[in-house]
């Protein structure tokens, strides 16, 4: 699209050197009006030459003069218009798009060649039965050769390259028998055309490429879509930071441009953009994404804060301290790298099949040649039969078997809000027999809810909720929400003063009322999160708990019922974890675990022979996510967790975890069925080929027949009703 945009603009804007194309991810564009508002908002900015929204990818390409408007100006203008946006790191995305656009023209050429050669072949086949004279048949064969040779040379390249790369590293993959089959079919057909013989397989070679390219394009498309959606999710979480210059002026910058020594201001409710030390102000920091702890931590001058945490109280000034190598993030990164290496050795199903299949096929071809020679056939006839074996075994069905199922599975999950990112993610998910959950933000929603403790003091809740409604502190907001949930009408309270790190105070009723922490409100009892104290009355405590996702208990019991081992690993306090574990019915739980201990726990499970699915959302889960046999993250997770996880699920229920596991298992079952179909097809046609009965017509029918069968079988996955199968049930 950029190409089209640039081409369109080249004529209009002569100063090409002053322009830059910025791609923004804007996930909230859903309709025609959004396109119009987004484009008009951007076009109204200074320096913007052109803006074009893409509804499919939910991205906007903006051609802009960087000296007049920066990426920050663009995103903040869109934020104001109600479309949260984030600039994308470009190279990764364009590389992906380039690969798809390289496959599509090849698909077009293969389709053209297959169609036209088939037209000529059908004429020859029907001519064989009637009165076509041999010179015309030769003409048609030469025409076919003329179309097939350039088409195979161009459209077959992705397979040839991959096969060559595999052979160079002394491996075998599916592309080796494919390339061999296509090249031999084309070569032998050319030879037979010169000898005016009837064994011409140009149609088989080109339609084989056509079918396989369709599979590749669909596969690549689905992956690009998933990766794009994942990038969009993460892009939005990358924060901007308010930089405080030495002369005290402030400026909005990208968090990624922060350097140690810079000072940033963090307002209430904002995400901390980098690791640093507080130099002024005091506040509460929500560190649930880092430590799993739900209770905000009080910070003041001299304390450290970490990127990804949320400032709940007053405004803070933070000096960025983290130099390249000693941030919390890079420490976690090192652990993840080590953990990921073990996963890199996973061999995919199709590759495992091809390691058995490819040698078997080549041996069969050789046996055919030798056998025909032994019984006294001339060498060229023996070779023809041997090549026919290789053509008929060329693994069209086998090569489509897995990708077709994966595309069907991924698009089914995509429509349910689960984005599968890892290419081999589904296969690993299918092998899982043990699920490890994180607590905060995974089993729970990460939102605070008033603990239902019998009698609620409605009058106090009403008044406290009204006062709390003015604050952005998570406890205060939860209190206001709880008051509204009780059916109480919260009133606007005048002159509420917020004391950062402590609470809220007002004298609007003529006497002092405080809503805040126990120590500050002067209460000895520490059994509640927040207290309401009115002058002359006894204090009322409100305790908040992190609410479990609606279906957490149901999901856990369904998993346990299906034979999965379910455990809970959390960085939160022992009491909180025990309570959540009890509510979900998880017996095996551990509290107060550090990131490296989570990693060790996963490794220990692996050592005991479990294939673990890690479900987590925080920075503290990231190493464990990388170490698990497979991993899932909610879309609310910190970006590093989302990048590490094999799949990301959206929404506020846990059902997608079950859905993902069931679809992964169903996909594996269908892939194996497809292998069975492919093997059945081979066991019928290979003996025929070895006996020398295969004609080009039979080859064409058999090949398309088996390809269509495996594809149709894979498509069943789209509409099939699924139940989570038991662990160890036959796949």
């Amino acid at each position, binding site marked *: *699209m950029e*190409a*089209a*945009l640039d*081409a*369109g*603009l080249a004529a*209009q*804007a002569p100063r090409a050197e002053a322009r830059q194309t910025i791609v923004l991810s804007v996930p909230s564009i859903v*309709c*025609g009006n959004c*396109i*119009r508002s987004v*484009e008009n908002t951007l*076009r*109204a900015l200074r320096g913007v*030459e*052109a803006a*074009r*929204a*893409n*509804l*499919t*990818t939910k991205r906007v390409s903006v051609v802009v003069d960087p000296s007049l408007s920066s990426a920050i100006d663009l995103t903040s203008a869109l934020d104001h218009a109600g479309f949260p946006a984030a600039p994308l790191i470009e190279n990764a995305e364009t590389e992906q798009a380039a690969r798809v*656009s390289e496959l*599509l*023209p090849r698909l*077009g*050429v293969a*389709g*053209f060649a297959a*169609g*036209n050669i088939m*037209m*000529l072949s059908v004429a020859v086949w029907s001519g064989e039965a009637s009165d076509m004279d041999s010179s*015309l048949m030769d003409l048609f064969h030469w*025409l076919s050769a003329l*179309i097939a040779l350039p088409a195979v040379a161009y459209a077959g390249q992705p397979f040839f390259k991959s096969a060559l790369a595999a052979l160079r590293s002394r491996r075998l993959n599916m592309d080796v028998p494919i390339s061999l089959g296509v090249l031999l079919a084309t070569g032998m057909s050319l030879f037979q055309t010169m000898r005016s013989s009837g064994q011409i397989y140009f149609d088989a070679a080109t339609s084989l490429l056509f079918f396989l390219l369709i599979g590749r394009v669909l596969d690549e498309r689905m992956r690009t879509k998933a990766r794009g959606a994942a990038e969009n999710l993460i892009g939005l979480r990358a924060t901007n930071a308010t930089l405080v210059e030495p002369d005290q002026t402030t400026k909005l910058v990208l968090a990624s441009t922060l350097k140690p020594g810079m000072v940033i201001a963090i307002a209430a409710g904002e995400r901390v953009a980098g690791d640093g030390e507080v130099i002024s102000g005091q506040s509460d920091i929500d560190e649930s994404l880092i430590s799993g702890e739900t209770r905000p931590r009080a910070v003041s001058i001299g304390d450290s804060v970490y990127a990804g945490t949320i400032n709940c109280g007053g405004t803070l000034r933070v000096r960025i301290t983290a130099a390249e190598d000693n941030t919390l993030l890079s420490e976690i990164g090192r652990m993840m790298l080590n953990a990921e290496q073990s996963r890199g050795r996973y061999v995919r199903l199709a590759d495992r099949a091809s390691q058995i299949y490819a040698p078997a096929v080549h041996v069969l071809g050789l046996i055919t040649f030798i056998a025909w020679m032994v019984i006294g056939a001339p060498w060229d006839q023996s070779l023809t039969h041997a090549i026919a074996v290789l053509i008929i075994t060329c693994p069209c069905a086998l090569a489509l078997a897995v990708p077709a199922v994966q595309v069907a599975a991924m698009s089914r999950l995509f429509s349910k809000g689960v984005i599968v990112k890892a290419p081999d993610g589904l296969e690993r998910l299918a092998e899982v027999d043990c699920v490890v959950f994180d607590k905060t933000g995974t089993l729970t929603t990460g939102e605070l809810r008033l603990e239902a403790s019998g009698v609620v003091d409605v009058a106090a809740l009403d008044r406290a909720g009204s006062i709390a409604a003015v604050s952005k502190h998570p406890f205060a907001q939860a209190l206001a929400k709880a008051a509204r949930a009780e059916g109480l009408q919260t009133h606007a309270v005048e002159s509420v003063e917020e004391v950062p790190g402590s609470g809220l105070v007002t004298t609007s009723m003529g006497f002092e009322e405080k809503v805040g922490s126990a120590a500050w409100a002067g209460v000895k009892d520490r059994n509640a999160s927040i207290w309401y104290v009115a002058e002359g009355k006894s204090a009322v405590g409100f305790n908040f708990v992190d609410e479990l996702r609606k279906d957490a208990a149901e999901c856990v019991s369904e998993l346990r019922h299906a034979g999965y081992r379910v455990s809970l690993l959390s960085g939160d306090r022992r009491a909180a974890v025990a309570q959540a574990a009890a509510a979900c019915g998880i017996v095996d739980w551990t509290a107060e675990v550090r990131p490296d201990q989570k990693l060790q726990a996963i490794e220990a499970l692996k050592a005991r022979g479990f294939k673990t699915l890690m479900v987590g959302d925080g920075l503290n889960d990231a190493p464990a996510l990388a170490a698990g046999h497979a991993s899932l993250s909610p879309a609310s997770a910190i970006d590093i967790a989302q990048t590490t996880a094999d799949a990301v699920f959206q929404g506020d229920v846990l059902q997608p975890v079950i859905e993902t596991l069931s679809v992964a298992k169903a996909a594996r079952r269908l892939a194996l069925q497809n292998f069975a179909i492919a093997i059945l097809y081979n066991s019928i046609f290979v003996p025929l080929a070895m006996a020398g009965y295969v004609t080009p017509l039979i080859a064409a029918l058999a090949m398309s027949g088996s390809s269509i069968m495996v594809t149709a079988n894979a498509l069943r996955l789209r509409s099939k009703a699924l139940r989570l199968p038991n662990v160890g049930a036959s796949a």
Partner: protein
Amino acid sequence: MTSLAWLVPAALTLGMMGLAAFLWALRSGQFDDLEGAKWRAISDDNDRMATKSDRSQGDDA
């Protein structure tokens, strides 16, 4: 039989034209935003990419 002399080249030429049209459409980004295209069709806005001169004229008005 002589009809084949022009029928076969005609069929191949038509096929080639189809292929060329597909490759052109691909290269010029016609398939990039299939979702957006259906909305743009019913939009009243002039879908031409707005340039600076368009905008300044608009501002004047």
